[in-house]
């Protein structure tokens, strides 16, 4: 098995286990609490507005915004890690059919693996730090994935021409 395939398959399997373990942890210890926080904040906001306490209503809606921001990203991270892991393993099985040298394939595999770990990690880090750093990590990870994926598509098409 070539180095690029080994990297993709092992990276993908590790990411599957990591993504699922994260999902299990999240479902057990975080999801219910976050959903509860979203509902409580929103209902408190409406109740405070009904009592004409607008500063309390605004504070409650801010709490809602924070909880919802976290929830969207935490769910996205779980689905993206698991989905990307599948893609890594799949490509690992067929990577020799990408019509580039093994060296180029290894760099592409490295970009796919790094991007698959980094992009969701950047998204998750936004739940603890809303600064530019986590966003930049997510953007770089996504860019790695899109560039590598485009190259893989070209590699498949090129090989198919040659074998047709």
């Amino acid at each position: 098995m070539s180095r690029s395939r080994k990297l993709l398959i092992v990276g993908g399997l590790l990411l599957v286990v990591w993504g699922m373990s994260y999902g299990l942890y999240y479902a057990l210890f975080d999801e219910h609490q976050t959903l509860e926080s979203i509902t409580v904040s929103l209902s408190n906001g409406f109740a405070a507005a009904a009592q004409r306490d607008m500063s309390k209503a605004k504070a409650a809606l801010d709490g809602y915004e924070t909880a919802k921001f976290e929830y969207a990203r935490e769910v996205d991270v779980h689905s993206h890690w698991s989905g990307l892991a599948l893609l890594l393993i799949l490509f690992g099985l067929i990577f020799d059919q990408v019509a580039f040298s093994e060296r180029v394939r290894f760099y592409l595999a490295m970009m796919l693996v790094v991007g698959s770990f980094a992009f969701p990690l950047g998204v998750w880090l936004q739940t603890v730090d809303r600064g530019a750093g986590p966003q930049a990590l997510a953007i770089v990870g996504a860019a790695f994935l899109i560039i590598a994926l485009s190259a893989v598509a070209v590699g498949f098409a090129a090989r198919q021409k040659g074998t047709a």
Partner: protein
Amino acid sequence: MPEIANRAAAFPRMGARRLLIIGGILLIVAGMIFGDIFAVFVLHQNADRIGGHLVAATEAVAAADATAAQSHIISIGGGGGLLENRGTKVDTHVHIIVFGYIALLLALLQPYVALSDKRKRQLALLFIAGSTLLPVSVFLIYYVGTAGSPLASAGIGWASIVADFGGLLVIIACAGELGGLWRHLRSQREAVKAEELLPDRSWPSRALLTGGTLLVLAGFIHGAYYAGADLYDHEAQDVALLGAMVESAAAQNLTAALQAVNDYGGLQANKAVKIAAHAHIIEFGTLALLLAFIQPFVFLSERWKRRWVIIFLLGSVVLPVFVLLELQWGLVAGGIADVGGFLAIIALLGMLTGVLRYTGKLDAPEGATK
């Protein structure tokens, strides 16, 4: 003929690979049918009920009735609320399909897993059991609630506990497969049988590989565009519209408050179709890549294999594109998207028929299959 015999050896009748391929396709088909039923009978009705409660909550704010306002919001998002109804069904749909994908993937990896046949079968059965238990239990969360649960105080009911147990079974099965793969890598054995699958360069396999990669790429680009152009804007609008609802209602301006509720509904629909299109196009792309590998085990004539591939790829494009067009074309686009989903399901069932016909009697002469 030797190639066919090798394929038969790699695909024994009750072997782990066959169990995983059949189980995987059945899980995916079940998940898609569930998704269609959910979209037609639950999704829109649930959204209407959420809108109704938001209107009632807004009117309660205007009437200075804090208890009623709170009660309507809890009916939307609290335990047993409408968001839980929607969320658990989306989770069921997503998990059952993703587990189907993983089952197909594990089927492909079997020759690389250095474990006994018996152990591989046990892991395959464990995986399928967990993959069934988790989504079924997630579906039941809304109906079972927290009655009799030891974790009721944390809002966790029995259905959630059983779902987590199902997830644990899946993790154990995957960890077992990973262990087998590690043993294989350490022993440096050549996966001769596995290699036979991969060079399949038939038209159906090539079409699925190319189509799948392009679908995944399109989904990534769409997702990146959505994240850059819409995500933060949608999140800001979400809170701004809720703020407008409560402020306008508190100021007795019900017209403006109800307009904010209406705009909020439009925003949720906008978000939902864009996320659904992104998720579905990538899922279909991944599935196409997976199906490329199992084509050697689809015991049908080349002509029928091509037909199923074309129908599957057609459905894979039609569904996400018309989901996206629902904002402009409304129910017409929704109906066409459902037809796309139906085409994909039919194609999968066609391929499954071919897998079930693959009895191991692969010495049938070419052309004997129809």
